[in-house]
């Protein structure tokens, strides 16, 4: 463990790790957000941000953040004040907590190596939806309410395939610890035996994050902006931050579970953390790419897809994994 070598005081160690996670939590979404701006723009025959920060608008997201802080913070008259304020915080915090368990490199490049790391990450990622429901209900806006209910329905449908895909990986690795899962991929990445699981996991993550083509909870052409409709200023900024941090977090989980985490190929001398970041970037790129390509599904079509196809597929995947685990 790198840090333990230099810091014997557990509190100093704790503070340092927390600081590192917070910095990553605040910067990674900005990078992903900027990449999304640019990638979408170039896929759509336009330039994207070009002004802020001179060079290809690299500072656009920082400028956006500053703008959010400066904006007037409006709470609607008929809103439930406390719940309205608490909701964005409840959406953001679980995403930070996921970063605590994601290992970035070998030898201590992680916040905490929990024995139940995978379980912890999947469980805590579902808490955000409570914030979403709170936001929708407290806003006293019908569009917000519809968005929040859609979000909750979506979560119920998609949490199951997500966890089932995770369960198959845990079986394959023989551990629930995320560090253990990465170490188990020493010889081959789990994406090869678990290709079905990988597909299910990415699909379910998209639905969990309300990213296109599963962005019904915020469907801007139908219900304005779902649960975020009444939010302004930094509270709205927090919602956006949590969305992009969520993309990073779930890409991180996919990387750790399926893409071999810090294990590199071809040029293994590149340090492990860089490999992890590169893979997170690659998965996030796919997420962005899908946004440029697909229209939005309807809520009932999504439910049908989850219950009729993904869950049976995930169960079959578990069965198959178990079978091969016993045979070999």
């Amino acid at each position, binding site marked *: 463990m790198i840090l333990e070598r230099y810091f014997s005081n557990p509190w100093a160690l704790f503070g340092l790790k927390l600081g590192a996670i917070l910095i990553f939590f605040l910067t990674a979404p900005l990078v992903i957000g900027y990449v999304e701006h640019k990638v979408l723009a170039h896929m759509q025959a336009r330039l994207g941000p070009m002004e802020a920060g001179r060079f290809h608008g690299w500072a656009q997201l920082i400028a956006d953040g500053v703008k959010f802080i400066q904006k007037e913070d409006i709470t609607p008259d008929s809103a439930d004040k406390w719940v309205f304020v608490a909701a964005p915080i409840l959406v953001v915090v679980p995403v930070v907590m996921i970063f605590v368990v994601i290992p970035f490199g070998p030898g201590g490049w992680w916040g905490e190596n929990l024995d139940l790391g995978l379980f912890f990450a999947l469980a805590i990622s579902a808490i955000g939806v409570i914030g979403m429901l709170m936001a929708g209900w407290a806003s006293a806006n*019908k569009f917000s309410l519809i968005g929040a209910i859609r979000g909750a329905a979506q979560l119920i449908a998609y949490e199951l395939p997500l966890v089932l895909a995770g369960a198959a990986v845990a079986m394959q690795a023989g551990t629930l610890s995320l560090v253990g899962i990465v170490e188990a991929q020493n010889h081959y990445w789990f994406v090869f035996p678990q290709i079905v699981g990988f597909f299910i996991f990415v699909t379910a993550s998209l639905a969990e994050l309300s990213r296109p083509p599963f962005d019904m909870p915020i469907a801007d052409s139908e219900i304005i902006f779902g649960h975020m409709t009444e939010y302004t200023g930094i509270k709205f900024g927090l919602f956006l931050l949590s969305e992009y941090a969520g993309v990073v977090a779930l890409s991180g989980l996919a990387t750790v579970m399926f893409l071999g985490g810090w294990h590199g190929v071809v040029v293994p001398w590149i340090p492990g953390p860089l490999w992890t970041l590169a893979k997170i970037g690659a998965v996030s790129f796919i997420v962005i790419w899908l946004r440029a390509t697909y229209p939005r599904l309807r*809520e009932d079509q999504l439910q049908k897809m989850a219950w009729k196809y993904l869950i049976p597929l995930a169960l079959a995947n578990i069965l198959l994994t178990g079978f091969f685990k016993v045979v070999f």
Partner: protein
Amino acid sequence: MFPGGPGEGMEVIVAGEGSLATQEMVLNIGPQHPSTHGVLRVVITLDGERITAAEPVIGYMHRGFEKLAEARDYRQIIALVNRHDWLSAFGNELGVALIVEKMMGLEVPPRAQWIRMLMAEWNRVLNHLMFLGSYGLELGAMTPMFYAFREREDIQELMEAATGGRLHFTYCRVGGLKDDLPKGFLAHSERLVKLVRHRLLDYEGLLLGNEIFKKRTIGVGALPGDVAKDYGVTGPILQASGIAEDSRLTEPYLFYDQVDFDVPTGEKGDSFDRFNVLYRRIQQSLRIIEQVHGKIPAGPVILPKMPKTIKAPEGNYYLRTENSLGECGYYLVSTGDKYPWRLKMRTPSFSNVSMIPHLLPGILVPDLIAVLGSVFFVVGDVDR
């Protein structure tokens, strides 16, 4: 009165039959809503996400065009009607020019007529591209919108070269056109036809061939042909219901009888058919444009001896043109003055929007957007 209107409050109906009491919710879609592109308002009553009743409320954009026209001379009216359906400005001004010429018995030079056809068809492509893009956006696919604007930019550049305008062209005059085409226009136009035709394949891949797009639109908001006729629906929406009515074909004006084109039709009249018909209408327009290129004769573009003030002779006349979104009728009553006594416009969007309540009950909120977007309308054209 519709529920949720001014002074009406929220109408609450408590369902008593089931064990779980549910309430219906009245939701105002619009007047300011991202998917009504303009200020159409639809008051819907919801049971969960299912629509039980729907009522479009129009008039938020009433600008009194018909009344204004009674105090404008015919040249000014051409600039005025440019603006009611802002996406097919040339089609609008063409209709007014045609009816005044008809009443005055003017014989417009053929070159002007052919150029008018060329412009009208380019304008139609311009209009349809807009809806092609925005429909994707309403279903959550953002890319087609930007592609549509890429093509629109090119076409606007072309039309700007001849007319000087990008949205409101004001290129028609009673008796002909404002100017002749600039040098190299036809070559530019020919290149553009090829380019647009090639790029249309992008939309086919992104939308028409897309599984999710098909799932969202096939069977959604099907409009039977006889209902469409009852409501006076015209244009792509009528054609999607399987009726090949197009006044360019059934009652040709300009030289539409001398070019070869088809009227694409759908079968079920659902959202997918409407979109598909719109898409294929672009291809047909491009076909017409290609034929027009070779047929424009030399000659003047406006009658040499036009009077200083244009006065339509006493009488009345009705004329219909196939505007981008459907049939646009003009009924002109003149007392022989330099102003019309009455200019009544029958705009396609108005009739097309009027059938929305027929389609909406029983479908879901996301389908409402899919239906509204596929009943291609311009709010200015509804309210005038």
